């Protein structure tokens, strides 16, 4: 059954986020996928996250497809104009990539090519319109396509900074759903009560909501997030917990597992982001009882 | 009445029961047993006959028990699982019963390491809970442990031991419950010096309603000297002798210490009489049997009821 079928049937889905390599050695990616194959429903492939140059998500998606798993790739307008994007979408369909997430694309200020020029031809809504148009067999210039692609397309919410921002995002998400987004991905937060509240707001939009669980790796990372990312709502007690544990890495795995366990009942799907530590995904899923 | 046991009858009457004990001699002279039993015969409802106490070889407890029985007294046969397997124990039980012994205590026994045959192999085929269960099934179901029928089942009034002071404390009442569930009719406790802790234990016991299911006899040991008190505190596993008791013993001259020990024992009995769930006392006057009458009398437990 495809991801789309499962979500529309109301089944619970598990997605794992995996980055493409910075280089051409795909062995880690392939190994990680093989270890997870029977346990997840799709692999989410970001495209040059945070402005760090990687192999394109399109190729990553094709590799995942070769391994027999469903890929879901990020689409955004920072690096490509409408020509390149449409071309890539057509290629994606042909390569067997039918799941898309339309995202905003992060600024390049902290990436490894800070001097690159952002394109920003299309924004998120434009992209959804573009996908919608392709689905109908026309490109953005109105020309008819030979053969229509098929896509299951969702959108992503920005990290929620505060209550006002939450309202804005809910509004934006509503517009995106109206523009054709078929599911909503919500970025992670570490305070479960708070996260539940946030998720509830998006559930009211009547499309499947997918929550994100982000794996912490050590005290330094947790500390950084707690200081610099107010949207994370990372409580001090979590840092203390990691610091006090005997095996910190295992504790981080356990924390991620526990969060999944808690969220499982509230949403239609979970995306697990191990951020480069995909080899720990099986352990997280064990802890989560998945 | 489940049995003919005098102890059962005393307890059933609602009176506070008193038992004490006699250690069989390390030799074949029956007179020794009689002498010791005579010392306490009028002051107790049952006489425990210990089974190779502290893992030292002594006259077998059932033989000594028979001697006491022949004196017209009421022996309580102690049996430890350390030295015999289930066959030997069951055969001894029916043997003892056939000689008129109708009350027994089921124990696991001190480890052989402490005794005079440290090189012996501890049997421990079954444990004390399982022995209680075995005796109960022999009596109530008329069946041996292996399942075969007994043509005349031994009607034993079954006792078991409890140590409220060993670790872990929270497990102690549960373990008691287990023994009761297995079939214990009465319980004799380890020597009680820490009365506060014992009262807490009794509270926990009553909370579970166990006082309704079993007769508990509080263990009392008079101390001869401060040296003995210290020894029991430091050297005897599972013993809880609070510092103020030691201080009290040390506070009097050496000559007065035996008297002080007896005073403490009596005071303890008087305090514990009022504790809910305490149905009697088991006085263990180790090699000091002659003092038992004095304690019983001064504690107001004399005369013993006549049945």
């Amino acid at each position, binding site marked *: 059954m495809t991801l789309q079928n499962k979500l529309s049937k109301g089944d619970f889905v598990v997605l794992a986020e995996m980055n493409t390599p910075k280089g051409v050695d795909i062995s880690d990616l392939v190994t990680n996928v093989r270890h997870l194959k029977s346990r997840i429903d799709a692999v989410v492939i970001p495209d040059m996250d945070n402005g760090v140059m990687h192999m394109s998500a399109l190729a990553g998606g094709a590799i995942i497809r070769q391994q027999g798993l469903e890929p879901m790739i990020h689409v955004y307008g920072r690096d490509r104009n409408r020509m390149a994007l449409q071309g890539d979408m057509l290629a994606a369909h042909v390569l067997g990539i039918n799941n898309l997430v339309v995202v905003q694309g992060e600024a390049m200020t902290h990436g490894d090519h800070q001097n690159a020029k952002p394109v920003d031809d299309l924004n998120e809504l434009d992209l959804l319109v573009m996908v919608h148009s392709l689905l109908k067999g026309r490109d953005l210039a109105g020309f008819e396509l030979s053969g229509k692609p098929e896509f299951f397309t969702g959108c992503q919410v920005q990290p929620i900074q505060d209550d006002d921002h939450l309202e804005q995002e809910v509004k934006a998400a509503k517009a995106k759903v109206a523009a054709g987004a078929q599911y909503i991905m919500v970025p992670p937060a570490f305070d479960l009560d708070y996260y539940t509240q946030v998720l509830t707001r998006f559930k009211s939009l009547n499309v499947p909501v997918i929550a994100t669980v982000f794996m912490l790796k050590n005290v330094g990372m947790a500390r950084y997030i707690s200081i610099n990312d107010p949207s994370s709502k990372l409580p001090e007690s979590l840092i203390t917990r990691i610091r006090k544990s005997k095996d910190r890495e295992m504790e981080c795995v356990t924390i991620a597992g526990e969060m999944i366990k808690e969220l499982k009942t509230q949403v239609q799907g979970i995306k697990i982001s191990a951020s480069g530590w995909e080899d720990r995904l099986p352990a997280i899923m064990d802890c989560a009882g998945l | 009445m489940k049995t003919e046991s005098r102890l059962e009858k005393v307890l059933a009457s609602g009176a506070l029961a008193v038992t004490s004990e006699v250690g069989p001699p390390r030799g074949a002279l029956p007179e020794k047993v009689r002498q010791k039993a005579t010392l306490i015969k009028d002051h107790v409802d049952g006489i425990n006959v210990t089974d190779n106490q502290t893992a030292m070889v002594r006259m077998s407890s059932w033989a000594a028990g028979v001697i006491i029985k022949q004196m017209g007294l009421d022996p309580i046969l102690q049996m430890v*699982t*350390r030295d015999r397997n*289930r066959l030997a124990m069951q055969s001894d039980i029916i043997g003892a019963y056939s000689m008129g012994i109708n009350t027994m205590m089921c124990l*696991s*026994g*001190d*480890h052989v*390491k*402490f005794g005079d045959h440290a090189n012996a192999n*501890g049997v*421990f*085929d*079954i*444990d*004390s*809970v*399982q022995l209680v*269960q*075995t005796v109960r099934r022999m009596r109530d179901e008329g069946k041996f*442990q292996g399942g075969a029928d007994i043509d005349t089942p031994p009607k034993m009034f079954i006792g078991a*031991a*409890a*140590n409220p*002071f*060993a*670790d*872990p404390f929270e*497990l102690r009442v*549960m*373990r008691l*419950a*287990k023994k009761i*569930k*297995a079939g214990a009719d009465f319980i004799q406790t*380890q020597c009680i010096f820490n009365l506060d802790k014992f009262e807490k234990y009794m509270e926990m016991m009553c909370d579970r309603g166990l006082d309704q299911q079993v007769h508990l006899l509080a263990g009392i040991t008079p101390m001869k000297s401060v040296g003995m008190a210290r020894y029991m505190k430091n050297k005897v*596993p*599972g*013993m809880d002798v609070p510092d103020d008791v030691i201080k009290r013993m040390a506070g009097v001259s050496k000559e007065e210490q035996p008297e002080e020990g007896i005073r403490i024992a009596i005071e303890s009995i008087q305090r514990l009489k009022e504790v809910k769930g305490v149905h009697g006392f088991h006085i263990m006057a180790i090699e000091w049997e002659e003092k038992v009458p004095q304690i019983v009398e001064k504690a107001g437990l004399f005369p013993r009821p006549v049945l």
Partner: protein
Amino acid sequence: MITAEQKPLKEIIEYISPYNRILLVGCNECVTVCAAGGRKEVGLLASALHLNCLKQGKTIEIKELTLERQCDPEYVEELVSEIGRVDAIVSMACGCGVQSVAARYKETPVFPAVNTKFMGASVAQGIWEERCKGCGDCMLGITGGICPVARCSKHLLNGPCGGTSYGMCEISPDVECAWCLIWERLKALGMEKRYEEIMEAKDWRPAGGGGPRKIIREDLSL
């Protein structure tokens, strides 16, 4: 694994005193790991035996060999070429290994060089503790993963005796009370209820009460 420790040298020396050509056989399994009979211990024992003989002005021939496993006939077979050339075999394997060698080479006396101790686990480098009695009817599932048969001095199955103090066994303050450990574990697992069930008298037949034990896997035995 099976643990063992070397016998007093005096005893080994006595065994071999009538012989001049000795085959000293180690085993590369358990006894290697517990530093009782691996290649290194074989070397050390050979050296010690040499020293002893040299002291008496004798020389003996000691052939050192370490088998992969002495409890498997195929490995024991590797000794065959040496058998005619020695007067006695000293085995540094556990009792099983010694018997395997003795069973195969009936015409040559076989002596043990170690005392086989118990089935144990390494708790720290150089320290091994008994963990299993091989009772043939494992109850670890209901005792929180701690074995009362092997680790309670009285093999009690229904809880701690009255001799426990500060979590230690009455026989020694160095021995942990198995039942205290079990109880702590059951609590941690939220399985306190388990304790309240009376464990029936144990059937000791699988533990050897029914005579020497045997495992037959018919699917493998052909």
